[in-house]
């Protein structure tokens, strides 16, 4: 418990934490609010409107694309101790490294869930407010929308842990953040476009996240444009299971890899 308290103090005292909360409000409230305000039907290219199920799922799915933010935060937090040389102090205070690494992981999970919660609440507030103001009745009942947002919120915590795992593996802060953001922001969408390789997309973190909200619009639009076969996402439950798998793998890496490594 002392270790988790220490790690929470470590995270909460940094500006990254404040920045992360602001990002959750800006992305959840701002991005979703803006998309709802403009209306997907007015996008270029136009997408189905908010009053359709597809349009609503698309807006929520696009919110899922912002997962690189918590992932980058996880990578940043996991590499911070090496960057600033405090790893030696930490492992001296807690030479049974497994315990402090597990405490870090628990702390990052708490931070990830807090980020996801703020993001989901801000998105829900923005969505319902804008829809009411524009007089649009949403394409899905409110409880369903909230459930989808909750899934996205939890997925954000998973991405933060994936970032933590990458950070533990690479140790170099710049490299870890570049890899995480580069993969999620650039590489994964590109993979989605390559015929053949895109069959893998449902199994990648992005595909699993999209499965959570059954968000196929972008993938379908891409397949249509490229004339390739439509990508079949996993069912939401399988997507959730796969994401959990990614989180566990990242967690295992984050605890096991630094266990015996020399701190020089």
């Amino acid at each position: 418990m002392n270790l988790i308290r220490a790690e929470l103090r470590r995270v909460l005292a940094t500006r990254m934490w404040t920045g992360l909360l602001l990002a959750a409000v800006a992305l959840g409230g701002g991005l979703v609010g803006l998309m709802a305000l403009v209306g997907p039907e007015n996008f270029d290219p136009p997408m189905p409107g908010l009053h359709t199920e597809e349009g609503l799922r698309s807006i929520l799915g696009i919110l899922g694309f912002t997962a690189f933010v918590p992932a980058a935060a996880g990578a940043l937090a996991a590499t911070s101790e090496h960057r600033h040389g405090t790893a030696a102090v930490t492992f001296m205070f807690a030479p049974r490294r497994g315990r402090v690494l597990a405490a870090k992981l628990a702390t990052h999970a708490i931070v990830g869930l807090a980020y996801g919660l703020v993001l989901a609440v801000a998105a829900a507030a923005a969505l319902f407010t804008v829809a009411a103001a524009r007089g649009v009745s949403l394409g899905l009942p409110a409880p369903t929308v909230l459930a989808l947002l909750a899934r996205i919120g939890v997925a954000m915590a998973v991405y933060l842990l994936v970032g933590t795992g990458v950070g533990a593996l690479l140790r170099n802060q710049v490299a870890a953040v570049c890899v995480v953001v580069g993969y999620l922001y650039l590489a994964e969408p590109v993979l989605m476009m390559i015929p053949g390789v895109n069959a893998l997309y449902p199994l990648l973190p992005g595909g699993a996240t999209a499965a959570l909200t059954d968000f196929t619009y972008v993938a379908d639009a891409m397949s249509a444009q490229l004339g390739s076969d439509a990508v079949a996402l996993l069912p939401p439950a399988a997507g959730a299971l796969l994401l959990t798998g990614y989180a566990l793998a990242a967690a295992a890496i984050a605890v096991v890899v630094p266990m015996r490594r020399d701190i020089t």
Partner: protein
Amino acid sequence: MTGDHLAIEASGLTKRYGDVTAVRDLTFTVRPGAVTGFLGPNGAGKTTTMRMLTGLVTPTSGTATIGGQPYGRLAQPARTVGAVFDGNAFHPGHTARDHLGVYAAMAGCPDSRVAELLDLLGLAQAADRRTRGFSTGMRQRLSLATALLGDPRVLLLDEPSNGLDPEGMSWLRGLLRRLADEGRTVLVSSHVLHEVQQVVDDVVVIRRGELVAAGPWSRLTGPPTVLVTSPDTTALAAALAAAAGSVEAAGPDRLRVRGLDAPRVADLAAAHRVRVHELVTETTSLEQLFLDLTTETAEAR
């Protein structure tokens, strides 16, 4: 754990990085109640050794224990051992209070201990400033505060003089002396000898990862020698040798005498009616000893 006297023991410590052997078969003991200087030129393996003592680096072979326990098995590591390796290990966005608060929580110390240490190290004014803007001296003091959080019985300092001004260094020597006098074990590494010379009781000297000398400083330096200048060295040498002194020439009209102290040399000279122009007691400085012990390497290269 107050009252515990914990020795540090290294036994056959070896660390290889690929083909490079950083530390080779190092065996020494650091006793409680004394300040021990851990000396050697830069790159001799001091930092690697200290990191092996604290479990940060796993030895290739050999063991290191503190009070008979490997570091990783200590029940309360932060309350047993405090160390400063790099006087700059802080998150730049943390304030001094944040930083100490994190480690106080890890060690299970109350937050009142944080305030105590900020006062003790003269950081109270800067407590709520982010460490990003700290001077080197402030960083050193905050590192020391971190090491002292758990009121440890054993203190390890790696090159603490880096970045400390002479006043800070003198303050640090006073602190180390006080801690040792309380029965704690203090190991302080340095390549700048005159800074620790005034405070060390024992020394461990290494060169190229191997032990060169270890023991009480007074025994390593040996008894003082007497340098005597006289126009009649032949008669003087005979007189001193008769009194069981060991004599060697140290110049045309100079002798270096071992085994007899200066008053005795003067008395013998007077008794034999030999004129003496100068009489000097020589004590080897740690610097000289260090140079003697380590320059061989430079010549061998």
